[in-house]
Structures are given as C-alpha cells and as structure tokens.
C-alpha cells in the first residue's frame, strides 16, 4: 500500500483528511518474522525519505523481517500542507496516526500473539510524538524506540514572531535556537516553510510535558553522546522508570543530533530491542 491517505475506504478523523503520505513496506522476501508492524516517525524539517529511507532504516528493518509503516508529517515530505492550524497540532497528528496504523492493519496487543500490537520508532520531534502515542495508546503500542529525545520540545520555545519578521524583511533573529531551527528548515528547498511554522505554532499551543502522560511499555532511548538537543535524555528515562516502565538507554559514541540517525549501533540496538 502506498500513496496519499485519501482512498475512499480509508477513514478520516473528524471528517477531514489531512492528506498524509503513508507507505507500508513489506519485509524482504523470505525474511518475514511474523512480528507486529513498526511505525516510523521522523523529525522536524525532515521526512520519511531523509530520516528513514536515505539513512538505511527502512531497508535494515525490512531485512530484519519487519513490516514498516511510514508517514510524512503534515507539511513535510510528500504530505500536503493543510491550511488550518488544527491539522498540525500534536493531538490531531496522534489521532491521524492511530487511524493510519489501524488502516494498515495494526491491532491491539494480545498476549501470546507476536503479530499483534505496534512498535514505534521516533526521532527528535518523532520521539515526542511516539512518547505521547505510547502513553495514550497503551493497548496498541508494544515497545518504543526514541532517538535523539528531549524532555522539552525545543520547538515550544521557538520565537515565531522573530522568525516571521526574518522571513518578511530579513530582521536578524536573536534567539540562537530559533535561528538554528529556521536555518535547518531553510536548508532544504523542498520544505514548505509556512507549513513548518504552522506546525511550530500548533506545538506551542500543546507543548510537550512528558510527565503528564507516561508510556508504560518497554522503551529504548538512544542519542549521540554529542547530541546537545538530547542532554535531558536521562531525565526522560527516569520519568518513565518512575512510572514503572522498563527503560534502556544507549549513547552512540561520537555522534550528534543530526548524524546519530545513520549509526549502525543505533539500528542494531533498535532491531534487537524490538525483535521480541
């Protein structure tokens, strides 16, 4: 299955279709483990192709016999850029994700059935969404792998007004994080900047609070040991552990927020962690 999330038999959430680009990748021939599907959630200003395709994740998971569901977030990759702000809110995205994985065949975890449930791998913003998805869908999500995770969403402190001024007339942005994120978004000519700003605005309306809803399924947290955007990973781990979940942490030597994602150490650990 591939293509926009628009086929008639596919269900929409609240009657509107955000036109997210969804693909389902079948396991490589002869490798099917019969395990539950894996949902991949990419980061801000990235896409399924950049975050999971070009980096070798999809082929690695397929070769490990896993069925993979990918989705481009609104305003990213091949998904469309809805006009309304609501389409970008994390809660709405989570609702769309639930509909998408259900349409792709994911079913609640049943004891003794390795095909049931759903594993989720996120990176950066995708990790935030995965955390919340796991916390709100405890019956569906089996295990989580969160890459480059942060207990606060850096997008929440993004200076939207400064960014809009900069885009309108070039007024320099004072806040370093805001300037850095905008530069990252501008690096890719294919990005729809105004959609990305809508996403930021929506996220500011629903900032990440990991303690508000904590996932209880086993989770693996992974970050480069030079990842400045993930220095709060141990705090995130202790929030999950305090809530009673099994938590593993892995630091990838020599890697930062933008290059930890290709690491074999990361992939091998994720495949092993989810291969149960």
């Amino acid at each position, binding site marked *: 299955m591939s293509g926009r999330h628009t086929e008639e038999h596919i269900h929409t959430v609240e009657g509107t279709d955000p036109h997210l680009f969804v693909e389902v990748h079948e396991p490589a021939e002869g490798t099917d483990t019969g395990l539950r599907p894996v949902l991949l959630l990419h980061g801000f200003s*990235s896409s399924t192709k950049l975050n999971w395709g070009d*980096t*070798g994740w999809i082929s690695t998971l397929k070769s490990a016999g896993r069925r993979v569901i990918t989705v481009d977030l609104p305003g990213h990759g091949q998904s469309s850029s809805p006009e309304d702000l609501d389409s970008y809110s994390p809660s709405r995205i989570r609702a769309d994700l639930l509909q998408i994985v259900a349409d792709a065949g994911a079913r609640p975890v049943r004891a003794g059935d390795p095909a049931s449930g759903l594993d989720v791998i996120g990176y950066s913003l995708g990790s935030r969404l995965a955390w919340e998805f796991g916390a709100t869908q405890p019956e569906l999500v089996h295990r989580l792998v969160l890459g480059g995770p942060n207990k606060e969403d850096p997008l929440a402190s993004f200076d939207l007004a400064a960014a809009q001024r900069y885009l309108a007339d070039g007024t320099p942005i004072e806040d370093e994080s805001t300037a850095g994120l905008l530069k990252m978004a501008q690096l890719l000519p294919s990005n729809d900047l105004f959609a990305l700003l809508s996403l930021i605005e929506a996220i500011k309306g629903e900032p990440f609070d990991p303690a508000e809803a904590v996932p209880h399924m086993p989770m693996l947290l992974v970050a480069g040991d030079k990842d400045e955007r993930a220095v709060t990973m141990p705090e995130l781990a202790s929030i999950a552990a305090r809530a009673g979940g099994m938590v593993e942490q892995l630091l990838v030597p020599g890697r930062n927020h933008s*290059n*930890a*994602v290709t*690491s074999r150490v990361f992939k091998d650990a994720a495949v092993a962690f989810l291969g149960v």
Partner: protein
Amino acid sequence: MAEISFPLPDLGEGLIEATVLDWLVSPGDQVERNQPLVELETSKSALELPSPQAGKVIRIHGAPGETINVGEPLVVFEVPDNTAGIVGTVPQDDAPKRRVRLSAVLDED
C-alpha cells in the same frame, strides 16, 4: 580484472561535499549492489550510501571525520573484466544447441 572507481555522487540539493562518519565496508570485502558502503553527513542530513554495483572493494578514500568533494574518489572496486557493465548481464557463449535437423536433396541444376 578491471578497476572501477566510484566517485562521491551528487547528493542533490546543491551539496558539494560530504563528511565520512563511518565505513560499513573494508578493503577486501565482496559487496552486493545496493549494499550500504559508508555513512556520510552533509550540511543537510546524514545518510547511508548504497553500492552502485557488486564487486570487491580494493580501496576506500576518507577516514571518519574527513571531508570529500563530490566527484572525488570514494571507493575503488575490482570487477572481472567481463562484468564491467552496469545494466543487464554478460551473455555466456554456450555451446550451440539445436533441435532442428536439415534434410534436403540438393539438385545441382
């Protein structure tokens, strides 16, 4: 045997260079087409570069942390002389097989 050099390809979006993160193959390795060769990082993203062909890796260029320009040598493969094509397969010259036999009376008029 022939050598085929694989230069750092155009990675798109105006990129002119990439930094080596980690090699996934070593000289002497036999690789398949599309097998990941190396992890690279550009100013925009990190990626794994798949091998454009099957062959034996005989040289790799760029230690982790080093920057390589687009068009500069990245990997040198050794391939048998007769498989140095990229599309299709080399036909084998098998002994000719036949099922049809000719029968004719040749009148020499």
